[in-house]
């Protein structure tokens, strides 16, 4: 995983393991497709295979969290959270215009992966520890799931912990490999500059992504002013009377209404 996850203690305490898992699943999924894309674009065949392996790992992690989203869906909860792939755009996990590999040179790309995987590792460790502290509630949740859905593959809470541990090992490996590659190919000074650049910019991204309350307040204020400003113009938007027929005319074809 090398993108932002909205992970805070209150997320786990209040609801939702499900919500946290959704963000993790989206982050892992976005990494999977970024790496897949890189594997198709890179010239070096060994790197292509490496990226492909990384991508397959990330797909596997995505599945783990997707499964957890479904499994941790409390029967009395009204909120339905679903893994919808296109959320990777609206939640900012992937840039709409281009993939990272198109934006960065290979060396920069590898530092980016290395730094992000390292941070992902810390987040996963925090998540695991959080779960250990909340072991009873998660265990209860998992026990219920086990009772109700015995045919699902998630059988015991220990499987959950083991899977997460494997996932952390993967992230460690991804980070180590990417940073090793960067150190080998980039001058020391430049490597350090890039390393700190992504370390700081990632922290900023985490801060922005986690500021949901601020964003909500801001939207209320914006919408209030928008309504004030545009309500008098409402009638200009009434398009019911506009004819939208079939005219094979160039001038008509150029119009947006």
């Amino acid at each position, binding site marked *: 995983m090398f993108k932002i996850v909205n992970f805070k203690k209150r997320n786990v305490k209040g609801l939702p393991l499900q919500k946290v898992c959704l963000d993790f699943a989206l982050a892992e999924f976005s990494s999977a*497709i970024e790496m*897949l*894309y890189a*594997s*198709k*674009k890179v*010239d070096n*065949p060994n790197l*292509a*295979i490496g990226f*492909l*392996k990384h*991508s*397959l790992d990330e*797909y596997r992690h995505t599945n783990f969290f997707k499964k957890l989203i*479904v*499994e941790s*869906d409390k029967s009395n909860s*009204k909120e*339905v959270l*679903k*893994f*919808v*792939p*296109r959320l*990777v*755009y609206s939640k900012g996990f*992937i840039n*709409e*215009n*281009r*993939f990272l590999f198109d934006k960065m040179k290979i060396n920069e790309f590898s530092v980016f992966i290395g730094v992000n995987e390292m941070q992902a590792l810390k987040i996963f460790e925090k998540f695991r520890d959080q779960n250990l502290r909340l072991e009873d509630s998660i265990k209860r949740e998992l026990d219920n799931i086990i009772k*109700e*859905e015995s*045919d*699902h593959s998630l059988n015991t809470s220990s499987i959950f912990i083991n899977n997460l541990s494997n996932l952390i090992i993967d992230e460690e490996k991804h980070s180590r490999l990417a940073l090793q590659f960067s150190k080998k190919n980039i001058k020391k000074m430049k490597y350090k500059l890039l390393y700190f650049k992504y370390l700081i910019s990632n922290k900023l991204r985490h801060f922005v992504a986690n500021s949901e309350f601020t964003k909500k307040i801001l*939207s209320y204020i*914006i*919408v209030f002013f*928008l*309504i004030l400003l*545009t*309500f008098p113009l*409402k009638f200009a*938007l*009434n*398009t*019911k009377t*506009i004819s*939208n*027929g*079939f005219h*094979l*005319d*160039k001038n008509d*074809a*150029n*119009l*947006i*209404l």
Partner: protein
Amino acid sequence: MKKYIIGISAYYHESSITLLSENKLLDYIKEEEVTRVKGDYKFPFQTLKLIINKYKIKNSQIEAIVFYEKPFLGWSAITYNALSSPIKKWKMVLNQFQKFWTGSLSFSSDLLKIIKIPKKKIFYCPHHISHALNGIYFTSNQKKNFLIFVIDGIGDGETMSIFKKINNEIITEKKCVYPHSIGLFYSTFTQFLGFNVNEGESKVMGLASYGTPIFKDFILNKIISIKNDEILIDETWFSFTSEPERSYSEKFENKFGKPGKLIDYSDFKSDEFARLANIAASVQSATEELIKILIAIFVKKTSIKNIIFSGGVGLNSRVMQIVSEMNEIEELTVPASPGDAGSSLGAAIYGNMVLSNFKFPEFELYPGKFYNENIQSNIFKRLFKKIELNNGIEDAVADLIQKGNIIATFINQREFGPRALGSRSLICAGNQNKVVEKLNIEIKKREKFRPLAPMIRDENFDKYFSCANNSKHNLLWMGMTVDVKEEMINKYPKAVHIDHTSRVQIINKYNDLFYSLLLKLEQKDVDILINTSFNIAGDPMVFDFVDCYTNMKRMDIQYLLADNGLYKINSI
């Protein structure tokens, strides 16, 4: 110098690009196939770059780039509705103002990030016209007169358009406007039942057969109806006009109970499954009824009995079967991709027509080419190993299939539309029940209630299926379901849905690889193949060799059938 017309659909459903040149359909690609993000709706940046590179298109060669709607109309219809009660619908107001900068109104600025062409070469096709032209393209004879039904969620503020196509003219017969929409009505139930909107509608259709339509009359009396040939919904049941994320209201929930969750569908025998299946059956049955009423009204009014049905509702293959069986009609055509993703074709045709009058490109169901230039051959060799064959490739594949193997296919010339028609498919023998079940549940990870589709040679069709003959051409692209005969239920039970229908694909001599493969299999007493798309549920269909590899690895499939040979997957 070759000239090109590019059709684009984007911003709502799966975005796509269609490329026309010299009156030929050259290519059709969905953005999701390239980005690997299922349901990718954004402007197709990646696909456009790919197409320009692949065909080495220079700006001067582009005659027109055509967008599949009039952006201001769609935006203003929803905004106007939201501003009618801005306090209650404030979330929608905010959403619409965000969309002013990020939605389809930004089409030309997004486009100009990739291609610098003069604005006079950018055309905007009325949304339902792009659906209608897409529909006409798939008819058996484009010169005939047709009555065209375009029914979807919303496009250009419209939810239903009925056109008469008479000679070279398309005349509007009827229009219904937002929010009175059969498409949005169906999507609301899709969301309520726990599925993703724009993707889960086919799951609702499949689920419907397991239930009893106990709410059908209630729905038609209280929620949606047709009065004086107008669709009318009671807005109090819905919240799609006020909330961008949620479609059903509190009142809806009070009536139909707790919304469905994916976990509820794991046990067929549970009360919860039965409750949700009954709701699905009710919405499906109500939709069938509404469509039948509309078709009967307008066939009577216009006396045109050749019908084209396009728009997202056309993806409901069960409704299409019911329409094809109506006594009032003579012929039904449902395009291979009736939804918005297929509308980039309609938009491109519109551009072709604006530039060269009422002229349709030549018919092509398999337009896409290989996109494997970037795969170095030594990488390909590390991913796949070619199998040396003693006999023909069909013999080898038939043997593997008979032994219970599942074969992935990656054939040049990709299929048009959302359904795998052999070029990007997973196939296995239709009579091996355990293999079919493994393919559906373990490999594809589909819900248990969703059936898999059979593939059969046209000549054998009547042995197992029955269908209105003048609508049979839709089965070349699985455009509708058909009833199965007793022999099918006995010999291929896993390819039959619980309501004794199948969404069959017929293979004719045009599709020579599958035609000869089926001939070989018939010698082994297998005349039906199971055909499902080459992807894991929730992922787009594979696009190139690397996708083939990752998907095969994730699904644990060993064999890949390509034009130039049979391959086995390697470990890396």
